[in-house]
């Protein structure tokens, strides 16, 4: 009685309970990480000592809130810069790829399409080490041959951005390609017939149609970049992004509830961004 199970019956109730249990399982660690941000205690554990916002706003040790913790704030700032760069870059290349694969005709297209999807299934650790090894090799070679130190090829911001860009571009390409496929080509024809130039058509018709997908892809890219750890771990230099800073603290220092406060902050931030991407993707009356 699979499809008819929407009504009553013991099986259907059991099925609903199962789905409910599943969502409790999904939410449990997030609630656990979130709740201790508001516990008035030195440690993120029970018993509950009362509600506080100190882990966000307090400005003195030992309960230094996240908005006064210099290292966390610096990590947040670095993550933000990386994520914005990755988002802009990957949306640009993703848009080009969408036009290439939806409109272009060239030999070996299917092969190239698979190449485009490939980075998504390569483990992030391997992307990290392979890019690190290549960049270091080039930098070493240049140093030996020309006695020139190429600082930007050493672990640091640029390599982190490139490493994340290398697989996030696949995501943005897929999102924007899906939208471009839905485009009704007769709209462009009509504009051409009315005497519009190619650039004009692109600017006034095709790109506005793609805009929701571009924004959504940018938001996804931003979030994936922000939370990336595996690839970043190998490419990071002295400017550590937030995930690395938090990881160091978690492993080396032991956690205080300030990490919970950061978690709450990040969850709220991602929630707002996810909501925005939903709103822009909601289809307006057909353009």
């Amino acid at each position, binding site marked *: 009685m699979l499809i008819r199970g929407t009504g009553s019956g013991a099986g259907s109730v059991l*099925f609903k309970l199962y789905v409910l249990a599943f969502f409790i399982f999904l939410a449990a660690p997030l609630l656990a990480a979130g709740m201790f941000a508001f516990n008035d205690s030195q440690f993120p554990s029970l018993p509950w000592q009362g509600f506080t916002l100190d882990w966000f706003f307090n400005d003195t040790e030992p309960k230094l809130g996240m908005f006064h913790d210099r290292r966390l704030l610096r990590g947040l700032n670095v993550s933000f810069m990386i994520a914005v760069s990755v988002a802009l870059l990957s949306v640009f290349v993703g848009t080009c790829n969408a036009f290439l694969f939806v409109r272009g005709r060239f030999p070996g297209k299917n092969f190239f399409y698979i190449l485009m999807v490939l980075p998504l299934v*390569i483990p*992030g*650790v391997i992307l990290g080490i392979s890019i690190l090894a290549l960049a270091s090799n080039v930098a070493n070679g240049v140093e030996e041959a020309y006695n020139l130190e190429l600082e930007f090829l050493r672990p640091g911001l640029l390599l982190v951005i490139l490493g994340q860009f290398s697989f996030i571009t696949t995501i943005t390409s*897929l999102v924007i*390609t899906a939208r471009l496929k839905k485009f009704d080509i007769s709209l462009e024809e009509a504009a051409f017939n009315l005497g519009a130039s190619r650039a004009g058509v692109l600017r006034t018709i095709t790109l506005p149609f793609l805009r929701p997908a571009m924004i959504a892809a940018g938001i996804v890219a931003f979030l994936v970049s922000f939370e990336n750890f*595996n690839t970043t771990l190998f490419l990071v230099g002295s400017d550590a992004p937030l995930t690395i800073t938090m*990881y160091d603290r978690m492993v080396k220092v032991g956690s205080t509830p300030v990490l919970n406060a950061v978690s709450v902050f990040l969850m709220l931030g991602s929630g707002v961004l996810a909501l925005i991407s939903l709103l822009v993707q909601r289809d307006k009356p057909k353009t």
Partner: protein
Amino acid sequence: MVDAADSVLPCICGTGELIAVGSDIRKLSLLLLFLPFSLWILLLIILPHVGMVVLSLREKVAPRVYEFGFGNYIDFFMEPIYWNTLIRTGLMSLLVTFLALLIGFPVAYYIAKLAGNRTKGMLFMLCLIPLWVSDLIRAFGWILLLRESGIISSFLMSSGLIDTPIEFLYTDATVIMGLVYTVMLFMIVPLVSTLDGMDNAMIEAGYNLGGNGFTVLRRIIIPYAMPGIVSGCIVVFMMTAGSYLTPILMGGKNSSWFTEQIYDQFISRYNWESGAAFGFLLLAFTSVVVWLGLKLSGQTLSSTVAKS
């Protein structure tokens, strides 16, 4: 999927004159569009991987002296800890993939077929929420729940079920649960989108022809959902085998995940040649598993993961 769009192209230009001009412009714009794509794939994917293979074939014979050879690979096969870790990672990843499918399929089915229109969207969004939260925070949440002084242990103590705190972390079962949790969404999303495209009439027809729930599931629903199942399994398997944070945070020092070996060689021992060999072995191993999975299920990469 890609080819269908090709036929659209020629109709843009109206007159013969325009076609001549248009085809030059089109070639130029094709080249311009191909440029960012090729730079990206060549410089950030192909060259680094070729470089990694070349690096892995360099044998250290003396300090700062290298020779071409398979020494790093021979080392790997001579040292049981290394290949045992790889096999263990592979087997545990397969188990995680299977569990994720087993747990996720009913949920995906519920969302795609049983939930009402409004709850459907909401449930799907709920599924996606953990996706927007970093791995790190999810693992952190599990640690707070499961450790000796954690929520579950304290709760069991205060309810009088146990007398001494229990450490739930640092076991294989915990690592597997944490990994299933981490990758679950990448299983559910492709499943929901395939099942969503399935016509309910097909299921009804199955029942009308006298099939019971199990037969309908086995003969109709699962074959239809196969591309989604395979796509979800590939992504989940690759993500699990390549994961680093969850095993190390939830399994501790004894988790022996293969990515930890790679990290160890690269960062702690600064032995890049051997680290590159390990990286290549992980990639080769997981690719072979995925290839076998595709062969066994009769699917191709372009009918599953590469389908947008």
